[in-house]
């Protein structure tokens, strides 16, 4: 795992006093977060506490109501469509249900992000080569011509990860990467997250319920409770805390 560098220049995500509500349902109420380059941060929180909303704000899928949201030195709420698309090529987003395109083969799924940004990776990069490389990274080269319906849950998560890797993101946002998997497959995915981090030195936010996953992958953890960061420390520090809202996750 990468060491945490506390330079301001290496801050890739900076969130201050973030507010987000859906009608009267106040989901985020002054959330703060900073993510350093190369760092993996786990965010834990109860179901419905706004974890998915948080990372959807980061990638601009949800608009924020109030607060500061800087990603790779861009104010996300200020960006126009084109600039946002540009920024998104630097961010990988792993959806909770994998979100593979049902009607496309694995290869077409992986090629899809390339179609609008063929030049991002330079002219000497060939799509076939990128697809093969990304599939190789997740250990599923043999699945290249399969349809998503033929894949198991764990394989889907791997393919979805390959699809985000193909753009060589600087940041990856994982939405419950191990949910719905058996513990062994979950562990494999956590190991894969670490392998990707080591290989590409990406910064990552891992949203999870799975304590084993948080322990394996994160340098630091945030407990999201009542729309705010309730606690923030390393896994081992948090494991010692005597607060009931923190302890709830460690039992």
């Amino acid at each position, binding site marked *: 795992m990468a060491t945490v560098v506390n330079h301001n220049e290496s801050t890739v995500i900076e969130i201050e006093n973030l507010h987000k509500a859906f009608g009267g349902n106040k989901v985020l109420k002054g959330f703060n977060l900073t993510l350093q380059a190369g760092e993996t941060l786990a965010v834990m929180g109860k179901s419905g506490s706004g974890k998915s909303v948080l990372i*959807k704000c980061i990638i601009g899928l949800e608009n924020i109501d109030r607060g500061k949201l800087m990603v790779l030195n861009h104010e996300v709420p200020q960006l126009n469509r084109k600039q946002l698309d540009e920024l*998104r090529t630097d961010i990988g987003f792993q*959806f909770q249900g994998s*979100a593979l*395109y049902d*009607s496309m083969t694995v290869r077409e799924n992986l090629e899809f*992000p390339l179609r609008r*940004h063929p030049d991002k990776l330079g002219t000497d990069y060939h799509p076939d080569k990128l697809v093969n490389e990304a599939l190789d990274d997740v250990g599923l080269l043999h699945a290249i011509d399969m349809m998503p319906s033929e894949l198991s849950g764990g394989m889907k998560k791997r393919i979805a990860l390959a*699809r985000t890797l193909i*753009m060589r993101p600087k940041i990856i946002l994982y939405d419950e990467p191990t949910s719905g998997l058996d513990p062994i497959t979950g562990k494999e995915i956590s190991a894969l997250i670490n392998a990707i981090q080591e290989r590409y030195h990406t910064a990552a936010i891992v949203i999870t319920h799975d304590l084993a996953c948080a322990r394996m992958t994160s340098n630091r953890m945030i407990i999201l409770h009542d729309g705010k960061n309730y606690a923030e420390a390393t896994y081992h520090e948090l494991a010692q805390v005597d607060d009931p809202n923190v302890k709830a996750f460690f039992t």
Partner: protein
Amino acid sequence: MVKALRDFFLITGKISQFAGRYFREVLFPPYEFQEFLKQCYYIGNKSLGLVGTTGFIMGVVLTLQSRPTLIEFGAESWMPSMVGISIVREIGPVITALICAGKIGSGIGAELASMKVTEQIDAMEVSGTNPFKYLVITRVTATTIMIPILTILADVISLLGSAAVESLKGGVTFQLYFRQVFEYLQFGDFNPSFIKSFFFGFTIGIIGCYKGYTSTKGTEGVGRTANQAVVISSMLVFILDFLAVLVTDIFYDL
């Protein structure tokens, strides 16, 4: 009652907004031409058999049913023109639209709804592809263009069915039959029904896409979305048909 009325206007407004977005975005690049062709092929492939079969049967049945009455009045020779007009003006466009609402509209609704709930639409968005252009513009344009084409095919097959009955029962040759059909059929019959089938196609596409694209109800809502897409678009087909007849009546003074 008041609530139902309010809901009706609310959804009408939302659909109009959705349709408005279609017109705002359809002209500007990037164009998803490949996906558009794929959808056209898919629509033709999926509904041609059913449209053809139904059209043929309608032609045969209509002719068989009308024969006794026409014979009674000694107006047997009016058969080609009468059946021709019914088919081209009404039966062809409406039957084709209803079949496509059932087959294509429901398919689009279910497909987009399941893409929505499994976050595939969000996945497109974050990978830099405008999902509205890729999914909605292509499908709506495809139905708008394909349903008039299918309507013409249905008209032709239906007339062939009718001609087959006439040649078997009345000894009228195909040649004579079609000569009579075209003698009576005017652009006043063909044009309005051709134009209205574009509206039918657009309606089927836009309703299917709207229901699917804005679906929020989770996986169990996918079937319901498909169902609603069929019900709403079928109803709109009848309403549009009624309006089309009113307008035609004014312009062509039939």
